[in-house]
């Protein structure tokens, strides 16, 4: 690792999304794998060859496991830190990104929770600035944490607000 990163680690305390995000992603991968498996069995079974069937099943399961591992890394890569004057969000494994968004730039905060997320008691918090490119999304927060972050961001945004 590079020196700079170590320095960052010292000064910034990252919070991670809820561990349930890992479960949710695992569930999603599992569901996709099962669907692919059903398809593979259907197709390979239709061919009537036992070898094809076993190759397809093993292949799909391996792909599923690999996807799960990738998802795990991606989930672990998410992090956010509420500093005094700005919000830090990091994400990504292949493309590592760190966004710094001053609270004063916040236009509004959006809390979204899809049906799956709701089932797991999770929510995504997104902070919007005037720039379309700003990337301040934190997925997989527990509902309580999401509400806290939302309130925190709103109050900080209000107290530090400034025009364009």
């Amino acid at each position, binding site marked *: 690792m590079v020196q*700079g990163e170590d*320095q960052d680690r010292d000064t910034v305390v990252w919070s991670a999304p809820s561990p349930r995000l890992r479960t949710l992603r695992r569930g999603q991968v599992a569901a996709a794998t099962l669907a692919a498996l059903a398809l593979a069995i259907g197709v390979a079974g239709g061919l009537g060859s036992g070898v094809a069937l076993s190759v397809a099943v093993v292949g799909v399961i391996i792909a599923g496991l690999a996807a799960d591992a990738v998802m795990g890394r991606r989930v672990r890569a998410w992090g956010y830190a509420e500093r005094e004057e700005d919000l830090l969000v990091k994400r990504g494994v292949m493309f590592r990104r*760190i*966004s710094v968004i*001053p609270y004063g730039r916040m236009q509004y905060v959006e809390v979204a929770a899809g049906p799956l997320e709701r089932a797991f008691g999770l929510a995504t918090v997104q902070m919007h*600035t005037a720039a379309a490119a*700003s990337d301040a999304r934190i997925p997989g927060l527990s509902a309580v944490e999401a509400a806290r972050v939302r309130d925190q961001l709103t109050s900080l945004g209000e107290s530090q607000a400034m025009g*364009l």
Partner: protein
Amino acid sequence: MSQASPSEPQGRPLESGAHAIAGLQGNWQRLHPLSPLVRAGRGLIAIAVILLIPGYGGRQGSSGNEFTHAGVLVVVLVVALVSWLVTRWRVETGVLRVDSGLIRRSSERFPLSQIQAIDIVRPGLARLFGLSELRIRLAGGDRKAGRLAYLASTEAEVLRARLLDMRGGVAPITSTTAERALITVPPARLFASLLLTGTGLVLELVVVALVVLAVLAPGAAAAAISAGAVWLFALLVSAFRRFNAGYHLTVADAPDGLRLRSGLIETAAETIPRGRIQAIRMTEPLAWRLLGWCRLDVDVAGQKARGRQDRNEAKAVRSLLPVGSREQAASLVATVFGDVPTERLAPPRRARWKSPLRFYFLSWGGNDRYAVTTSGRVRRVTDWVPLSKVQSVRYVEGPIQRRLRLSSIHLDTAGRNVHAVLRDRDQREARQLLRELPERGRLARQHELIAGPSYTSI
């Protein structure tokens, strides 16, 4: 070109501004009676052509067809008339109110205190009738601009000046006083520069090819022209648009902002308020670089264009300098932004592996107030971004960059197009910048809050 300068109150301001003043005093006012005609202009002309040509040309067309055309014409006229009848405006206490619509009534209110700028636009047909459109832009960027289309030009001038007076806060402004012209663009150079851009070169190639073809095989040329007429026309229109937008462009420094005036057929006078400029971009296409020319564009805050009207407006926010020398560009940038960084830092040499082409020009520079980045190979692009306008700072490190220990820093602004990227910096430098730049931005904002928007030249 008798009307070189569109925003000059002439004639009898007192008498002809009567409607405007009545409206300002709170009496309902309608738009100019000819405005529906101008609005429906293109459609009406098309209908008239369809109507008249068979009517006078040959009498073969069935009369039923003509009745249909006449019916369409009447319907269009009635719709236009009704829309004119139901559209009214007046100034209520501190608010400009515009009511419109018969079936879907809408009532828009524009708080005078939030007016950022009022622009006067004159499309070709409106100019013929001496009409102008007022576009009222509010602070906040993403909101729709208010439109009063159309008013008599003199009324528009009076109304604009009075509305700007009434919004308070800023020193009262009358249309052309206290302006300091910074730059004008000679039409000849504009024309030459357009011939050297991408569209221009394509157009020239097409014309040359057609001429050659016409000499060698006239029949084939005619076929080619008729087949490609639409494309040729589109090319011509796009080239003409740029010519029109840059024609006689004058940039002036006024108390309320930068005032741009331009146009051959459609004239526009537009004010870019102080402190609203998010970024400046200098573009130097290959052919222009040989001549030492460049183009300057400003980026102003705003959401993506939605409707047609908004798109037109988005286009209007535009070139500060359609073509000029690098010295002119530098002096404009200095006027608008003040003290911009002069020193540039090149990325480490290993960045050549990741950006082999653009490495040649790749650099960035920064001081306490601004960042400037250069990129591109064929077309050199230089972006200036005031750190006080930066909405967020992003650090991005891709797989190739990681291998080369490089990373990029993005400075996001509220502008539409320009966003500065400090590409392929050394990783340690980038980390350092990620810590520093938000802090510098904060200080720059505080500085601006105290000292007012940076761009003051008076």
